[in-house]
């Protein structure tokens, strides 16, 4: 598990979405953080920009937890 990818997405969730930092864990779901599908689209777009990768729609639609997003991004980064 890349702590860098997790740290960056956590930072975005805290700074751009106003979620309390202590609530954001690797196994948090977007829903329990009060984030909907559009929030997920925005966060992944920012992460794509940061790491210069493309996440396919079909992968993004399956991101229900932070872990799934981090793993999806990690897979794209390592390609």
């Amino acid at each position, binding site marked *: 598990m890349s702590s860098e990818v997790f740290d960056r997405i956590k930072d975005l969730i805290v700074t751009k979405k106003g979620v309390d930092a202590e609530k954001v864990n690797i196994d948090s779901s977007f829903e329990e953080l009060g984030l909907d599908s*559009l929030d997920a*689209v925005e966060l992944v*777009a920012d992460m794509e920009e940061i790491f210069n990768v493309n996440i396919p*729609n*079909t992968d993004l*639609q399956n991101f229900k937890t932070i872990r799934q997003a981090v793993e999806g991004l990690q897979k794209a980064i390592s390609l």
Partner: protein
Amino acid sequence: MPDRRVVVTGTGVITAIGHNTDQFWNNIINGQSGIGPYEAVDSTLVRFQNGAEVKGYDPTAYFDQKELDLMDRFAQFALIAAKEAVKQSGMDCAIDNGTKTAVICGTSIGGVVSQEKTYTDLYRDNKTRVHPLSIPRTMPNSAASNISMHFGITGPVYTISTACASSNHAIGNAFWLIRSGICDRALAGGSETPFTYTFLKSWEAIRVVAHDTCRPFSKNRQGMILGEGGGMLAMETLESAQARGATILAEIVGFGMSSDASHITKPDQVGAERAIRLALEDGKVPPGEVDYINAHGTGTQVNDSMEIGAIKNVFGAHAQQVSVSSTKSMHGHILGGTSAVEAVATVMATLNNILPPTANYQEPDPECDLDIVPNVSRSKKIRYALSNSFAFGGLNAVLAFKKWEGS
């Protein structure tokens, strides 16, 4: 004054599956999809490569240079569809000096092809001036205004922008204007031309466009496919149509609209159901006599299951008898123009007693388990038909049509 009855006496379309109603309907009954690689934009710069473009379109075959100078592609499509509808109808739009005729056009984004040109002239090519007619080409009301000027229509002329429900709102408003006696006839519909680089990139970013094709109600559906085109109905009072011996194609009997007031992109089934119920109530339509619904059916996971759920809740046991298809699988999602094109498909379905198919269908989805007319059109007696639109922004509009049976 008692409510007057409103009938459709002409249709016009220009889409990826036909430049007129005959071609369009012929492709629909053959399940022929117009979705394929788009050419207006360099598709290597976009993550999705397919769309439903109007191919083989030569503007000079329809307009002289002076007219073309004034009109963006979206306005051209609206006027082409309006001319076809008026020609078929035979109606005189300029009767009473045109004061009792309305034009209501739907568009989500207006003249973006012209707007894109001004951007590239300024930001990319570092030009210091843009085309002098950039404003009249870009303004979203230019389609309605050009139709008004062409036919000498001087009554209510306006544009409705409610994203993907725009044209249903336009047709519904026109229906009410005629029914209430404010107008005697109307041209109503809409058009859209979304194939610009900035607009395709914007759709790419919001993650709802399929990378393969549009497969409404199929379990493996990936999303929508953008389309371009226009559609228009020529509508008038039953009295006027009968007095001049016009051929009546269908009757418009009901219109319902609602707003979800919940989420900007995620549809709310409660709002969709309410619009359907209101259209049925407005038209005094017996729910058990609705035989066909032209679905909003975008091909996104969220819309299609929500829409089937709404239909089941409204119709109860009768839902199993209602055939529900999405013609977007063939002409694409034409955004502000899409429900006009779908209204034409619905009128033709009731006229011919043929169910348009849902093309590109592959896998049954337990959440979409109604008769969605997979891939192949078929005959069915249609008494009443609905056409649904549920737009981004949570704005819903539903039209109810009745088969014209001669009285």
